[in-house]
């Protein structure tokens, strides 16, 4: 027999097929195949046989779909006509309700293979698998998915596998013979691509093929729906949250290393700074002293402070005969505070008050003042006419000598 690894696959890239045969007296025949699908070719990653359920379950990776097939003394198979399949299901075990059974149907050549197992047996087994951290993606009954294997054909019209002789026609099972004792002749090597595998693993391998090809959207088994949901959540967790946490952890590790490095450099530099701290203090003092000197230098070189006599002379020279000045204040003191003895002066400001015979002469005086290059603006801050017709005025002049 020569099996082809290549076929038409729809979904998934890795899965585990586990075939469990429960014999009388609790003896177990378990075969496990972990298969991967790459470039539309199925390859066997590992294959394992065991008579201990616990041992073989431990070999299944936790985050891949597990396709389980149950068989043996708890499972009943019947080959029935397509139209009588449902009735057969009801009549298989008289006196029991359909809710008590988990059943599977497999399309044979012209008939239907109906398989049954008590739900409590299924629940017990799934519970055991779940406790080991595994979730069952699909549950089948019997070895009948073997017809999924492309290129499989029976010599002498039948394929012999442990506990069964299956008869195929055009890649479909026509009928089968079941034996509760595994015959030695049923175990033989099979060529699979470039590898040779034992016929014990054919059913497990066919479960993987079935997983890659089957459309599970129409499958509405309650038991499996919960398992699938949980598996999807588990895979989502391992595909998104765990990588994210790993990424954060790596970042934190890198950050920690960086922090240690920074801290080390910091300590080395800090010690050199501590040693030379007196230099820093001296430099700070020198810088401060320089800033103060600069301020003093600027104050001494203030051009405006040198032109007070000139401003007084020029302002007085342009006074018309009708005007008498009473005060001329160059850079007046800002709101003198005698208690605090603060002397602050309004730089760039001149205030004048005086008496004017007429507003015309005051206007003329303003024009005269405005003609000086160093006067920026002249503003009348107050004017009042006295009873004798003389006007009291106050002027404010802004000056700038830095032109």
């Amino acid at each position, binding site marked *: 027999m020569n099996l082809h690894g290549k076929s038409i696959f729809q979904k998934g890239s890795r899965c585990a097929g586990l075939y469990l045969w429960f014999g009388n007296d609790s003896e177990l025949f378990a075969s496990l195949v972990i298969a991967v699908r790459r470039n539309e070719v199925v390859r066997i990653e590992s294959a394992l046989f065991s008579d201990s359920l616990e041992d073989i379950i431990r070999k299944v990776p936790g985050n891949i779909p597990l396709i389980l097939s149950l068989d043996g003394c708890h499972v009943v198979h019947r080959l029935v006509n397509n139209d009588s399949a449902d009735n057969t299901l009801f009549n298989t075990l008289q006196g029991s309700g359909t809710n008590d059974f988990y059943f599977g149907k497999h399309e044979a050549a012209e008939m239907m293979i109906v398989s049954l197992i008590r739900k409590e047996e299924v629940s017990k087994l799934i519970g055991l698998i779940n406790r080991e951290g595994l979730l069952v993606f699909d549950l089948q009954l019997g070895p009948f998915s073997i017809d999924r294997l492309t290129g499989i054909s029976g010599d002498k019209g039948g394929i012999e596998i442990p506990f069964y002789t299956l008869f195929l026609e055009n890649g479909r099972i026509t009928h089968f013979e079941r034996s509760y004792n595994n015959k030695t002749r049923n175990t033989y090597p099979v060529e699979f691509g470039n590898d040779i595998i034992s016929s014990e693993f054919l059913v497990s391998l066919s479960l993987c093929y079935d997983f890659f090809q089957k459309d599970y959207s129409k499958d509405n088994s309650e038991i499996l729906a919960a398992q699938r949901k949980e598996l999807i959540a588990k895979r989502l967790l391992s595909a998104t949250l765990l990588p994210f946490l790993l990424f*954060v952890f790596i970042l934190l590790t890198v950050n920690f290393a960086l922090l240690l490095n920074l801290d080390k450099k910091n300590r080395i*530099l800090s010690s050199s700074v501590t040693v030379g701290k007196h*230099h820093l203090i*001296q430099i700070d003092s020198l810088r401060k002293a320089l800033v*103060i000197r600069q*301020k*003093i230098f600027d104050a001494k070189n203030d051009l405006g402070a040198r032109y*007070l006599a000139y401003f007084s002379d020029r302002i007085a020279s342009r006074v018309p005969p009708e005007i008498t000045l009473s005060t*001329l*204040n160059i850079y007046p003191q800002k709101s003198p505070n005698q208690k605090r003895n603060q002397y602050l002066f309004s730089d760039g400001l001149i205030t004048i008050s005086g008496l004017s015979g007429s507003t015309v002469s005051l206007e003329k005086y303003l024009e005269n003042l405005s003609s000086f290059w160093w006067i920026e603006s002249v503003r009348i801050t107050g004017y009042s006419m006295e009873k004798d017709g003389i006007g009291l005025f106050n002027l404010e002049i802004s000056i700038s000598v830095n032109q």
Partner: protein
Amino acid sequence: MLAYLFGFRKSIEASRELRSVREQAEVVKNAETLKTGLEVRLNEFDSQPGNLKVIEDDQEFILTTINQSSVKSQVRIIEIMGTDTQADNDIIRNTYGATVEGAFIDLVNLLRTFEEAGHDGNIVSATFYRFSDNKTRKASTRMKFYLQEIKAL
């Protein structure tokens, strides 16, 4: 958020601290050169003309300047104020002044004399005003002026 609070924030702070310490270390490394440069600049400032004070006493300076001026016989000293000292941001401001009576033109000349005296203090304010003596009923022109000297503390 937790990762930031427990990890990255500390690294950012450590990085900032390192930058600051590195700058300080750089200053320490070049301390001698920097100090020399700063001292040279300070000396340049200190050797500027005008920092040499001929007369220590401010009031004496006012009196001497007026009495040595060309208008000494035309003006009359009414008041010489004491020196007020203000300290602000490591800078000392000594303010002093006087009130003088005379003709306006003589007062202006006197003001110019003070401006050209080459003293540390600058004339910072001058006020000309008319004054009437209540007893003699005589009106005159007076000038009140302030000089301010700025020094380092």
